[in-house]
């Protein structure tokens, strides 16, 4: 075999490697590099870590940065606390072997996930709008009208509301992944548990949950990466200014405003790259934590 000419390996690999390197890895590398440069009257020159000092030290930059980072962390926390438990609950119910209409429920609950952020953002904006009044009149039907507030317009509620809208949209993904993991648990294990007296929710907590932990780990890291470069939903529902008063600003919208510019502010590719680098570091830390700590601990449970 070694005597055969091996140019075909190069031919097979080249297109993918070239496109991937040129459009993904090279720009990624260049973005990290651009963060170390600055442009002034003298043209572009190397500036070392100056952009990062500005980003973290200059109050005009550090305040929006920490604000966006803090919002982003809360955005992620809401997903972890609501989306993933809800996904597990729905999957646990769906995986009941004799449940009727399971496929129907599954397809219906997954529909929001395939809609674009633009649709989701505007649809919820209309529904929650006090002008249209669907939300208050529905609350009125259950006697809770006093609870209504223009949630998207209030600084203290807007971010949580958007996070919950995002949960509503994406709960289908954890549901599907957990559902698949639950179906793959061998019947013998559940029967062995039953002989030992473990049924229903007990069986779920003591047998199934430990076995689906690896899937929950994968979902968590997918949620993490997705949340820390989220942009579309905020942009569709609140605009690039992430109102009210930047209370829904995430790193993605902050990056967009900084490097692309908005209204009167001109885009600054170098500061934008510095923010992108910060996002890169955050995502990298998350992925590494997942790969090293969580994955090694969870492997114990796999069969």
């Amino acid at each position, binding site marked *: 075999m070694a005597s055969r000419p091996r140019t075909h*390996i190069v031919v097979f690999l080249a297109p993918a490697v070239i496109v991937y390197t040129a459009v993904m890895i090279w*720009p990624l590398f260049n973005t990290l590099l651009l963060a170390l440069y600055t442009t002034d009257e003298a043209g572009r020159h190397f500036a070392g870590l100056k952009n990062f000092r500005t980003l973290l030290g200059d109050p005009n930059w550090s305040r929006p940065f920490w604000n966006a980072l803090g919002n982003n962390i809360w955005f992620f926390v809401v997903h972890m606390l609501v989306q993933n438990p809800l996904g597990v609950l729905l999957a646990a119910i769906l995986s009941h072997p004799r*449940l009727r209409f399971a496929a129907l429920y599954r397809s219906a609950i997954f529909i929001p996930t395939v*809609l674009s952020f633009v649709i989701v953002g505007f649809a919820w904006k209309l529904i929650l709008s006090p002008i249209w009044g669907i939300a208050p009149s529905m609350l009125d039907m259950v006697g809770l009208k006093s609870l209504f507030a223009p949630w998207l317009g209030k600084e203290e509620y807007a971010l949580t509301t958007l996070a919950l809208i995002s949960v*509503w949209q994406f709960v289908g993904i954890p549901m*599907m992944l957990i559902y698949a*993991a639950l179906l793959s648990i061998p019947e013998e294990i559940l029967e062995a548990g039953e002989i030992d007296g473990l049924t229903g929710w007990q069986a779920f907590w003591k047998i199934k949950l430990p076995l689906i932990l690896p899937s929950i780990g994968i979902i968590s890291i997918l949620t993490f990466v997705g949340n820390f470069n989220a942009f*579309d939903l905020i942009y569709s529902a609140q605009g690039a200014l992430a109102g009210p008063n930047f209370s829904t600003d995430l790193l993605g919208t902050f990056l967009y405003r900084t490097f692309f510019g908005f209204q009167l502010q001109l885009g600054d590719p170098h500061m934008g790259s510095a923010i992108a680098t910060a996002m890169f570091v955050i995502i990298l830390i998350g992925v590494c934590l997942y790969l090293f700590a969580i994955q090694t601990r969870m492997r114990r449970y796999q069969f």
Partner: protein
Amino acid sequence: MNRARHNPLNSAASHAVLILYTIIALFPVFVILVNSFKTRRAIFSEPLTLPTGDAFSLIGYQTVMKQGDFFLYFQNSVIVTVASLFFILLFGAMAAFALSEYRFRGNMLMGLYLALGIMIPIRIGTVAILQMMVASGLVNTLTALILVYTAQGLPLAVFILSEFMRQVSDDLKNAGRIDGMSEYSIFFKLVLPLVRPSMATVAVFNMIPIWNDLWFPLILASGEKTKTLTLGSQVFIGQFVTDWNAVLSALSLAILPVLVLYTIFSRQLIRGITSGAVK
């Protein structure tokens, strides 16, 4: 044995929870679609009823058809999505074949290199991507979007497809070699047809994020001629915030193609997600 695990009360509760959540999941879509067929007055006075009798009106759709170039946007979205999927599948399958079939120096390393992009979002490199597209004159072309989406989709495609290609029997390929087939025809004629189901999975996985993306169309191709449906509806709806009929109709027009695609491909998609997770 099974009786211990199920009882009718549990089953009723299960259905109650699922029905409740299904209503929550579908309610916004229902409200948008239903109200897009109503007069302005009916939208506000009875938002939850069906568009019957006096309440029925197509005024919103008429405005949308007159103002927005939705057919062009739709066409752009189709071109970008189909072309990106084609290149992701072709290039991805070729690379996956090289990695899974041949032993060569750097095989592992190449696999790892291509896998990097699974976890790192391509958006991080947007600043340099924009500069590159400006320098090469590709800004405001669909080509720019196709390139970006192809690069974005390749890592996972290579990863999934090489898993499946390892399962293709060696005997088959060696039989082909003995018959004098070139490595290229072994790939195109023997291996590709066998991994078609996994190619469909990869396609369906990539289709939705590409179709729905707002970030790259906004940054790389926001010109009137190159707007995708997602960006087009975003801009259009932004302009008509006060014209509720037009907004609701535009939203419905944006929902429709996705729902149609979903009904066609949902089985494939769900099978893909579930089989991927078991691995």
